[in-house]
């Protein structure tokens, strides 16, 4: 997007939440283990629907892209993911479950 017109730079920042840091950690570890590259991450983000850039937050885009790439590579299957998401849905205490 270099060179496009845009408004003032709004100097916002926030401390990252734990789940966001874990998304970052997944990226770092998977690339170190050569199971993923930052280039696949970027390509995946570019491939998100047109409004995703404005609709999703930074790490929401990352986890979307990581998930797609892992499915594409065959590291995880759509069926496994579906079953896991259904399982998480059933857990009583929400986001605290599954924290490493």
């Amino acid at each position, binding site marked *: 997007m*270099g*060179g496009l017109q845009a408004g003032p730079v709004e100097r916002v920042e926030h401390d990252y939440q734990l789940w966001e840091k874990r998304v970052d950690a997944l990226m770092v570890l998977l690339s170190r283990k050569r199971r993923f*590259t930052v*280039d*696949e991450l*970027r*390509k995946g983000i570019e491939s998100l629907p047109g409004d995703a850039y404005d609709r999703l937050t930074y790490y929401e885009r990352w986890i979307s892209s990581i998930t797609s*790439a892992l499915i*594409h*590579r065959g590291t995880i299957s759509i069926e496994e993911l579906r079953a896991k998401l259904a399982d998480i849905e059933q857990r009583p205490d929400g986001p605290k479950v599954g924290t490493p």
Partner: protein
Amino acid sequence: MTPRFAVGAPVNVRRGNPPGHIRTPYYIRGKSGTVERICGEFRNPEELAYGRSGEPKQVLYRVRFNQKDIWPGYKGPAKDTIDVELYEHWLEPVR
């Protein structure tokens, strides 16, 4: 791999808008600059993006451009510059 361009060499950035993942910013395509440094050899990100090996490695250059050559109506002194990292397959010699 011997770098095709030396430090200080004038280079043109290829034009074009091929499909796929591209690490050459749109705004710099078709522009002319000078090799500022040779960064080394890296796996080709435009291949890595698709889960491929990225081999053979590509020489990566840092190329310096005059801002006035990039942006019509650039507001600033003529000596302002912008450096962009570019892989060898995106560069052509200036004839």
